[in-house]
């Protein structure tokens, strides 16, 4: 009950005119970056980050999280109307969303997508409301070994469940750690890995990395194939909106199952993209109409959308209560928290009640604002898609350049951002996962500190990670996840040679 009281208090913070306006601005900007193929939620949020430095933390996080909701919704709009996923996490929505829209039912497809997305987000927020403060309370008793164990588990789950080639995930993670270590070491004060470049003493800001990896990298991937925006009609029939939403309860099994998958994948750092694909795949296998998937099935839209938004929302739970982001966008937001002078983790629930509950309350309101705005603005943003890519591409480049520069007024950052762009392109092209790389850049330092403090406590003995039940469980769970791909590989070898990957899985791999 205490949680509900705190939540009500949060609503008094979130539902004020300035904050509602911020939500509307955030959602609109979010839909914009969600709709544009070269920009996504992680770099949209990081582009906005330099502009929030002067704001109150609670206002800043409301702006950024609203942008996140907007981007999640915006990605679905282009998936359905243009068959072009604006966001990696909405690729699975194209499978059934676009066929349905092409068959002359765009309103039904959009309303079904938004309705189930809102449901997924709602389940995610409810989960956060009731679970986050409890998790934080447990985490308050954590010492350095427990923290390191939790970080270890988070990184291991990327390797075990991320979906990309395990060794490539390991390489991406380790590169992220090395980048995080550049600059002044917080424990000893010595300068590390600057390779003789004095400007690197301040370290590599994650905003610069994100801007290059996601912004320029994605642009380079996008420019390879020419976009043909063949839109189906984007007119909204309001009566059909309510009818489509009214039909949703008939698919309650699919809704609940997808929400559960989404929440699980969001809390463990699987991320929204993996969640939406997994949910779609499971729905196709278990639905009675599984054979019709891909031709405009309602459940083929419900499943990925619900899971996508449930995962996107619940990814904020570990960020708030443990200081470990569950997705790339959450990692960027967490970087923002640190810049605003907050310390992400369980102490937030003690020291910064207004911030935490204001944010949680704003998630309820923000998602409602997002659904309303996205429905109202579909025709506007659909028209935006007709702007040729050659015009949008240089503008995105300029935004990334200015964004990278404004982080710390450094030209070197701009050059590095461009370098990260090439890395991002190569990694995307060859299916190296980017989310663990960003995650490691953001929390690499904290993981290292936790490890070194544990070692100080135990005078150099690794035995401290097996000193009590909790720590042992976390470490053993992490090791199990690390070994999972190896075990699966062996199991596959023992059985007869598996049939080669079919078309959907190769497409699934492209975006992870």
């Amino acid at each position, binding site marked *: 009950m205490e949680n509900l009281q705190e939540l009500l208090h949060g609503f008094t913070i979130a539902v004020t005119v300035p904050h509602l306006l911020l939500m509307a601005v955030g959602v609109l900007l979010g839909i914009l970056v969600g709709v544009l193929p070269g920009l996504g939620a992680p770099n949209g949020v990081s582009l906005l980050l330099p502009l929030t430095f002067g704001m109150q933390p609670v206002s800043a996080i409301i702006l950024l999280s609203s942008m996140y909701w907007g981007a999640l919704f915006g990605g679905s709009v282009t998936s359905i109307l243009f068959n072009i996923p604006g966001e990696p996490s909405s690729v699975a929505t194209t499978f059934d969303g676009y066929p349905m829209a092409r068959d002359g039912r765009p309103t039904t497809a959009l309303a079904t997508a938004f309705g189930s997305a809102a449901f997924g987000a709602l389940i995610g927020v409810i989960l956060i409301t009731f679970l986050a403060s409890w998790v934080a309370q447990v985490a308050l008793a954590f010492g350095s070994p427990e923290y390191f164990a939790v970080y270890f588990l988070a990184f291991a789950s990327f390797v075990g469940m991320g979906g990309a080639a395990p*060794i490539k995930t390991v390489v991406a993670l380790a590169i992220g750690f*090395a980048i995080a270590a550049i600059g002044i070491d917080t424990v000893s004060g010595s300068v590390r890995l600057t390779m003789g470049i004095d400007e690197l003493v301040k370290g590599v800001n994650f905003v610069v990395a994100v801007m290059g990896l996601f912004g320029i990298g994605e642009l*380079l991937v996008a*420019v390879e194939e020419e976009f043909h925006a063949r839109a189906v009609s984007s007119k909204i029939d309001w009566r059909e909106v309510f009818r489509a939403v009214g039909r949703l309860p008939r698919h309650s099994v699919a809704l609940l199952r997808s929400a559960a998958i989404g929440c699980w994948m969001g809390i463990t750092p699987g991320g929204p993209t993996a969640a939406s694909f997994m949910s779609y795949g499971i729905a196709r296998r278990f639905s009675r109409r599984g054979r019709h998937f891909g031709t405009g099935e309602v459940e083929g839209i419900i499943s990925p959308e619900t899971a996508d938004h449930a995962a996107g929302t619940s990814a904020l739970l570990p960020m708030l209560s443990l200081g470990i982001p569950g997705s790339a966008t959450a990692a960027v937001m967490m970087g923002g928290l640190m810049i605003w002078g907050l310390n992400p983790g369980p102490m937030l629930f003690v020291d910064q009640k207004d911030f935490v509950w204001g944010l949680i309350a704003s998630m309820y309101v923000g998602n409602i604002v997002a659904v309303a705005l996205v429905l109202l603005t579909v025709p506007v943003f659909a028209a935006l898609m007709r702007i040729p890519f050659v015009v949008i591409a240089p503008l995105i480049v*300029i935004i990334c350049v200015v964004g990278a520069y404004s982080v710390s007024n450094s*030209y070197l950052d701009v050059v590095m951002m461009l370098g990260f762009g090439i890395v991002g392109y190569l990694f995307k092209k060859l299916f190296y996962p980017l989310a663990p790389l960003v995650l490691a850049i953001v929390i690499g330092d904290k993981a290292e500190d936790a490890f070194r403090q544990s070692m100080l406590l135990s005078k150099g003995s690794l035995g401290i990670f097996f000193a009590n039940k909790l720590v042992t469980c976390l470490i053993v769970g992490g090791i199990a996840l690390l070994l999972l791909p190896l075990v699966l590989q062996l199991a596959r070898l023992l059985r007869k040679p598996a049939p080669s990957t079919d078309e959907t899985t*190769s497409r699934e791999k492209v975006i992870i």
Partner: protein
Amino acid sequence: MISRRALELATAVLTGSFGAVVVVSSLDNGIGWSSSGVDAGTFPFLTGIIVVLGSLYNLVRGVLPAASLASVPIAITPLELRRLAGLFVPAAIFVAAIPLLGMYLASAGYVFAVLAIPRHQSVPRALAMAAATALGLYVVFERIFQVSLPHGALASALGV
């Protein structure tokens, strides 16, 4: 035309050499255990080793013709390469021009060049868009958010 194999190899070499640099330069900070606990270089040293080993594995996987590689032998076709260069080369020139021209002139020139030279837009329209870009940047950053963008060596030489 760039094959998938060549791209895998190049990337593995890139990540591997980054790992090697990390390993070598973390040796300066000391690795192992000292009176003040774990030395500063230890953690980067270990991550560097992991990067090197992982890159070696990816390198070998890239050389061996695996089933997954055989299904997509070509990574970048000549046409795609031309499109990539068409985006990246002007962007790199734009970034290189910033110290001299400043953010406003460089970005206006960049927008104009990308739109007008390949004849995507007519010259007057490209000019208008270029001017609008520079003006938009100025209003949003210098005026609204009070973030000063670089004005360039040329501007300071002219005393603007």
